[in-house]
């Protein structure tokens, strides 16, 4: 602390440190406290036993989250690749289009999707106009996954696009020069160099997908995910202990997934940060 320069640097970080302490560390400690206590405030592990009954909800949440993440990846990767091959002007326009839905409130987007998928919604009305049989879309797992993909896909496109634009043209030319055709260049250069973007995209789509409650309750009908139960226990039951326990377990599982994902980036911290 004798060095005034070092002191000044610490002061610059102070606002964030206060923020982190008040809004991240303290709430986390509270979640942990509630998870290990009963409503009377005594230490207990019974909350965790209780959660065992919800194991199918956890599995369903992870399954649907995984499914939407994979679909997002399959759509986003080729799209990001194609965007990077456009002229800079077209690239800017296309990226604005990708970001555009994010300017609209999540609730609004989900309601819009609801109106599209309903039994008397836009899609089914279109089908009946064409004299085709109606399809039941709303309140299915498919509708929930569609909602997740629709809402979270920009978070997949963005990081992948970012790493791809950072691949320098001469590097691709060097690959061609050394004997790679287009596909080999993709496999040996473009793909390995875009892995950090894939990892952050997967993380940024998987985490909100697994913990969402709004999308499943609006589009899934009777389908309940972990997020729905957490919301229910806190809001309707005021059962902070069960809700906190579920949050803690969900957090642990997400952390585990991220640790696994980071194995693919060869220890680069870039992945989570992008």
């Amino acid at each position, binding site marked *: 602390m004798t060095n005034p320069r070092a002191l000044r640097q610490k002061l610059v970080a102070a606002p964030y440190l206060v923020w982190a302490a008040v809004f991240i560390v303290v709430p986390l400690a509270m979640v942990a406290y509630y998870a290990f206590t009963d409503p009377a405030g005594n230490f207990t592990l019974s909350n965790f036993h209780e959660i065992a009954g919800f194991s199918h909800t956890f599995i369903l949440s992870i399954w649907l989250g995984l499914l939407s993440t994979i679909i997002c990846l399959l759509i986003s990767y080729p799209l990001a690749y194609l965007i990077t091959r456009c002229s800079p002007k077209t690239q800017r326009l296309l990226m604005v289009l990708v970001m555009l839905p994010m300017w609209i409130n999540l609730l609004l987007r989900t309601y819009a999707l609801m109106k599209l998928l309903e039994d008397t919604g836009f899609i089914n009305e279109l089908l009946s106009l064409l004299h085709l049989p109606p399809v039941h879309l709303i309140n299915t797992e498919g509708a929930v996954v569609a909602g997740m993909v629709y809402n979270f896909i920009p978070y997949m496109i963005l990081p992948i696009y970012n790493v791809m634009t950072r691949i320098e043209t001469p590097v691709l*030319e060097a690959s061609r020069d050394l004997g790679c055709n287009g596909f080999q260049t993709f496999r040996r250069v473009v793909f390995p160099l875009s892995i950090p973007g894939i990892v952050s995209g997967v993380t940024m789509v998987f985490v909100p997908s697994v913990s969402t409650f709004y999308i499943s309750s609006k589009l899934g009908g009777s389908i309940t995910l972990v997020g729905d139960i957490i919301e229910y226990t806190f809001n309707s039951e005021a059962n902070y202990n069960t809700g906190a326990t579920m949050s803690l377990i969900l957090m642990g599982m997400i952390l585990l997934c991220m640790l696994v994902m980071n194995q693919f980036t060869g220890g680069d911290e870039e992945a989570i940060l992008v």
Partner: protein
Amino acid sequence: MADLIVSLQDVTVAFDGEIVLDRVSLDIQNGEFITLLGPSGCGKTTTLRILGGFVEPQAGTVTFDGRSMKGVPPHKRQVSTIFQRYALFPHLNVYDNIAFGLRVRKTPEAELCERVEQVLNMVNLRGFEKRRIQALSGGQQQRVAIARALVTRPKMLLLDEPLAALDLKLRKDMQVELKNIQKSLGITFVFVTHDQEEALSMSDRVVVMNDGRIQQIGTPQDVYNEPQNAFVADFIGESNIIDGVMLRDGLCRFAGRDFECVDGGFDREQPVDVVIRPEDVKVGAPEAGMLSGLVTGSTFKGVHYEVIVDVNGFKWMVQTTACITVGEHIGLTVGPEDIHVMRKSEYSGLFGDYSTFSDEMDRLSDPAFSAEEAAAAKGGDGDDD
């Protein structure tokens, strides 16, 4: 010619309607070190990219070993390129970068290992196999790029300003090293640079280019001693270029008097450009010189002084070891063999008078000139070519 490796015939390239290469014809001999030399946007990088297969000419033919290269993609050509900023693969270490070309060719692992070790030895990078590219200095990255290009045993190596990013001392050492590698392997090197000294010291032949056209092809001695026009004379080394008239073979008039010279073959009274190198002018007392003038500038350059002398309004550059100060009157003497006479060209009158700064210097202080426009006008001729 039996030993011809590459032949360009009337090659023309235009980007967005702007001519970048204008009917360029060039024969490259097997095993020679040939340098494409010229200022930014002269077409030298485009010429190199044609050889590498990255640019397809709109007109003209390119043959390699007698076969037409029309439509042959880069990966099917027996050439390797060393790119301006090396373009190493950031996700691979030194060994894997170098092995890249061999892996694509499915070379057996034992042979691959042996060949990588061999080129690593050649560029003095043994022990660096496992290093990450980002952990290497510019000079080391340069060596990896050379090793990576050579390991596939190309018939021809294309080098796009490979030394531009290195500092002066390292650049000089790498010039020697590259030349040695070229000699020991005996493969053709096509080297692109805007540095005339680099071109002169390394090449068997120099191709001087400007405005998408070849200005002169010749040995370094040829292009320095016998420049074909004012552009070449000005671009390679320093030159005083003076308007003159050829009176008859061996006699030339410029700067208000007649000079004996060794050139001939011109018409009587034909207007010409006369080139005199600053190091060829001898300095003496005003009354002893063929010409005399007032010193308006004198800069110490280490080995010599660079002196600007105003002779009847034309400013000469003279190099001398004598200490000369501004304001002195001095005499200048030029020997017959130091006078080089050139035919008039489109470049006549543009260069060779030291009363102004270079064009580039003028542009720096011209608010109407936009660097961005100039870069755009250059088209695809390499981003910082």
